[in-house]
Each structure stands twice: as structure tokens, then as C-alpha cells.
């Protein structure tokens, strides 16, 4: 059964330059216990998609279009009578069944409260237990996420923790309410390589132990390869390809996915050849292209690509791709 279902989601922002079309018709499904990676460059709309789903858009967002079903319940902004009602319901969901992990842990932790307070309160709220029991659970959680001498550190303030340790605290807070869904927005981007490895190992072991679903937003294909079961590739506010990890890494169909894979280096490879970069710059979503968002940088671009949005082709129950090349190939076979 799918836990989260998103259909034709649109998000727009009003800026003083004009209207930015950040998310332009995104649809996907997430199953129970699954890890979905959403990969894209900055400005591809990957974070805004998640913020839209969770009702966390900034003030200048225009009313959202599209349908979001979470755990069998319609939680799209459209379906609520008033904004107040929607916000009230989303607050409930965000605290109880969905946890979020952000890139910069400091935006999430309150700098003037002890780590303990910030951990114990959500536990007491969710589990309806006494303070003593909550304290014990907090210590257990801190140990679970690998914080040494948890009894001592629970009385410290966020500034006494390093970046990697803060990220662990956030993960502990996220786990406190046994969420059905964890949304992680670039959780390791701000960390150093060796610390990133620690946090990735932690997330990996959580994935095996709990049955929470995880949505992992990242630009790092290495992180995706390590953790994700399914991968969605976003470009220009749209999902251009979605599939299982092996379908994306070994059988990718979209030229953007292929380009992305060929322009990253594999340290195992010794060749001195030039990298294969994707030329140009991603489109500015202030004026998104009419056709395929990738046409201007695509080496296979055809006339139709500039004028019409590509149709989605299904290769397997899990693998879909939106590219005109597939139709062109079919046409030439006839």
C-alpha cells in the first residue's frame, strides 16, 4: 500500500522579478518502508516539492495545485476550506507521523534550550509517558544514534555539539515519535566526508531496523546509491525519470540522468580523459521552457523537444521516463 501519493503538484512563488514556477506537475508514490531518493541540482524544485507536501512554503507562495494523499487521507491544501484548518492539520501531521531532517541542524534546534529538553518534550507529547520514562527513552535514543556519554551530553546546549553530533540529535528527535515517514533534506551536505560516512551508516542501520519510509533529498548520487531503493530525478521543476536504484544507475533512459552519471568521477577509475559535463546552465524557472526543460542542454535535442512537453513512457512497473527520444525511436522502427 502506498503511504504517500502525490498527483500533479504545482507550486509557484511571487517574486519581484515575476512568478517563479518552482514545481511544475510532480507525481509520485512512496510505499511503506521504502527509501526514495529525490535527486536534482539546486533550483530543480526538489526541496520545494517536499515543502509543498508538508505545507511549509514561504509567505510569497501562490496557492498550491495538486493532490497529496498521506496514509489514506487527503492532505492537499486545495481540499481544505480555510488556510487555518489546513495549517492546524499539517502541524498535527508534522509533529506525529512525519519527521523532517534539515541540512543545517541549527535552524531546527533551539539554541537556548538544553538538548535534553528538546528531546524529552516530543517524547512526552507523543507517548504520554512520565518525565522519568521520557528521560530514559531520550538517553536510549541518544545512544542509538551514537552519541557517546549520553547521560552527560543530555544536559548540554546545541552550541556545545559539533555539526555531525547536531545532525545525530536531529535524527534522535525525528525518531522520538516513531514517524511513518522521515523526510531528509540534504542531511549530509554540510558535513565532512568522514562525518558524512558516520551519519550515512546511521541512517542505513535505521532503515534496516525500523519500518519508516524515508524520502532523501540530495544532489549526491553517491549518497543515493548507498541508501535508496528508488530514485526520482528532478530537473526544471519536473520529475524526468523515476525508477529503482538499479534501473536509474544501470539502465537510465533520460539524457539528463545519463549526463549526470557520466559527469561524476569514480575514484576507482584511473583514466585521464576529460569528464563529460552537461553544457550550459539549468533553466531559470522564472521563464521555464515550453517544451522539455532539458532541451537547451541536451545533445540529442529534436525540434519537438523545444515545443512540446514530452510524454511519460513506462518501461516497468517502477521505471518511468519523460523523453521524446523514446517516441522517436518507436516511430523510426515502424
Amino acid at each position, binding site marked *: 500500500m502506498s503511504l504517500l501519493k502525490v498527483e500533479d503538484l504545482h507550486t509557484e512563488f511571487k517574486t519581484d522579478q515575476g512568478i517563479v514556477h518552482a514545481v511544475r506537475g510532480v507525481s509520485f508514490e512512496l510505499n511503506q518502508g521504502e527509501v526514495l531518493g529525490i535527486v536534482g541540482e539546486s533550483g530543480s524544485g526538489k526541496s520545494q516539492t517536499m515543502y509543498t507536501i508538508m505545507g511549509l512554503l514561504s509567505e510569497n507562495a501562490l496557492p498550491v495545485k495538486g493532490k497529496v494523499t498521506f496514509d489514506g487521507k487527503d492532505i492537499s491544501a486545495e481540499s481544505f476550506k480555510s488556510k487555518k484548518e489546513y495549517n492546524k492539520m499539517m502541524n498535527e501531521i508534522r509533529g506525529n507521523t512525519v519527521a523532517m531532517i534539515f541540512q543545517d541542524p541549527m535552524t531546527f534546534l533551539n539554541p537556548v534550550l538544553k538538548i535534553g529538553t528538546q528531546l524529552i518534550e516530543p517524547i512526552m507529547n507523543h507517548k504520554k509517558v512520565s518525565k522519568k520514562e521520557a528521560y530514559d527513552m531520550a538517553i536510549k535514543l541518544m545512544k542509538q544514534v551514537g552519541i557517546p556519554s549520553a547521560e552527560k551530553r543530555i544536559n548540554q546546549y546545541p552550541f556545545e555539539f559539533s555539526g555531525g553530533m547536531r545532525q545525530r540529535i536531529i535524527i534522535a528527535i525525528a525518531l522520538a515519535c516513531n514517524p511513518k515517514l522521515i523526510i531528509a533534506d540534504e542531511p549530509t551536505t554540510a558535513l565532512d566526508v568522514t562525518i558524512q560516512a558516520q551519519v550515512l551508516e546511521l541512517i542505513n542501520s535505521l532503515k534496516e531496523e525500523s519500518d519508516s519510509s524515508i524520502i532523501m533529498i540530495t544532489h549526491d548520487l553517491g549518497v543515493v546509491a548507498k541508501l535508496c531503493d528508488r530514485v526520482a530525478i528532478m530537473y526544471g521543476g519536473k520529475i524526468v525519470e523515476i525508477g529503482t536504484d538499479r534501473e536509474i544507475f544501470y539502465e537510465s533512459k533520460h539524457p539528463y540522468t545519463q549526463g549526470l552519471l557520466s559527469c561524476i568521477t569514480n575514484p576507482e577509475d584511473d583514466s585521464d580523459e576529460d569528464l*563529460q559535463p552537461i553544457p550550459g546552465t539549468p533553466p531559470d524557472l522564472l521563464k521555464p521552457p515550453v517544451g522539455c526543460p532539458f532541451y537547451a542542454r541536451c545533445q540529442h535535442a529534436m525540434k519537438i523537444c523545444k515545443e512540446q512537453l514530452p510524454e511519460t513512457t513506462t518501461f516497468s512497473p517502477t521505471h518511468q521516463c519523460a523523453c521524446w527520444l523514446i517516441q522517436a525511436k518507436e516511430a523510426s522502427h515502424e
Partner: protein
Amino acid sequence: MSETILKVDHLKTYFDVTKGVFAKKQIVKAVDDVSFEVYKNETFGLVGESGCGKSTLGRTIVKLYEPTDGSIEFEGKDISKIKGKELKAYRKDMQMIFQDPYASLNPRMTVGEIIKEPMKIFNIYDTDEEREARVRELLDIVSLKPDHIRRYPAEFSGGQRQRIGIARALAVNPKFIVCDEPISALDASIQAQVINLLKHIQKEMGISYIFIAHDLGMVKHISDRIGVMYLGHIVECGPSDVVYHTPLHPYTQALLSAIPIPDPDVAKAKQRIVLEGEIPSPINTPAGCPFASRCPRATERCRKETPKPVQLGERSVACFLYEK
């Protein structure tokens, strides 16, 4: 290998971070006794995690910081203490590309003004028309359009801005460029563009680079030789292929093992060396090997003495495990 262009010898850059007049003296040893050489036409990669002193080292070499001790020889001349006219002449040969494309361009100047400024300062051309022509040429080299010349940095994307920064560095025809994490703020598809551009420029103009980064994959790709830094020290230094395939220092081993491999079958099967603990604070570092507190193979001796670099063929390693 060809001749040496830059020789850094026992370089130290310390910062006094003592707060208040009566507080205990606090010294950050950002760069502590570092020696290495860069050859002509070569790229020397510097890798390490944040706070290891790699950026300070780069900035000391371009003379943004004064070295505390040691020498920096550029084309056989010690430049560690030069000032005034000599320094200005050195700046013409030694340029820098910065990390943050959003902060390294003055937001109040147009692209043309930014690239023209160094030419004006060094009086490279007589007339403004010649300078303007050269700006267009440089924009073409970094694949930007000539009509971008009157635009402001804020109108460009991150990758485009980084290319403007490269054009500015090239404006004075330098012999050496220190690239201070030029790709870490960019998206993957854009990183490859910048790396290819830098390689292309090196081939065409014969410029030597120091390439600083924390992305080991990219550093290996662009560098001929690399140095691995930890807490102000170079712990291992050698040709990049050799260091990557047979890392000797325990830190290099852990660092390489931590790279996420973009291949699900390999990545999901791979056992990593996951280091315990965090990077210690660089303030008033204790004696001994800088890595001793996290090293899985540390001994008593490592906590007391600082290992000297041991030369093993083409590379050097600062670790007691390899002492003869």
C-alpha cells in the same frame, strides 16, 4: 618531472585568537610545518576536511595571510616576506579562484568591470577598447556570451559566476593559480564543466595549479600529485594514482573509504572504515601525531612524538608505521 615553480618549506601560519587582555594565550596552528613542491605545468591537489588548514595554506601562498615561519619560494625567490612593488609583481604571476561564487564577485560591479579591474591595475593595455576586447575574449574562453558584459553578478547562476571568477584570474596572464575549493559550492553537472575548463586552460596557457577541495574524486581527477592534510599537517603526499590505490597513512585510508561511490551494487556492499569521533579543535593542539586521537592503530609513542615525513619512493608519509 620538469622544474619546480613553487617550493613551500617548513611553512607555519599561526593565528592568535586570545580573547581579552588577561586570558590564557590561545594559538590556532592552522598550518604547522608544511613542506611540498609544485612543478611547472602541474596540478597539486590539497585535500582534507574542514578546519584542516588547506584554505589557510592556499591563502598564505597568495599572501593574503602572513606566514609565521618558514619560506615560500616562487621561481627560486623567497616571497614570504616581500612587500610593496615586489608584492604587486608577485600578484601578477600568482592568482586565486575562490570558493563561494556568490561572495567572490563584488555585487556592485558589472562583469566587464570585474574582469577589467586587474588589467587596469597592472596597466596591461593602453586603451579601454583593447581591455574591452580582451574581456570579450576571456568571456569566450570561459564559454559565456559577450553580451553578458554589462550584467551584474546577481543575474548569473553559480556555475556562471565561478566562470567569471576564472576569467578575472586569467585577466593578468598568471603563471600560477591557487584554486580554493572552486567546485564545492556547485552542482555535479556544473562541477565537471569547471574542471574541464581548468584543465583546458592549463593545457593552452601552461599554468600551474594548487587545487584545494574536499571532494576526493574530483581532486584525483584533476591532480597529478596530491597532499592529504589533517589538523595543519600534510600527512601523506605523492602521485595521485599511487595515493588513491595504496593509501598508507591511516587517515588517508579512512578518508578514501568514506567516499560514497555512485554505484548502488558497490556502495551497498562496501564495508567502510568509519572513523570514531570528531576532528579535534585546532586551538592549542597537544603534542604528538595530530591524528592520534582518532587513529585505530595509534600507540603510546604517537601521543608523545610528532612523526616526521618518511620518503617512500615518490611519496612521503608522516606516520611511525612506516619508519625504517
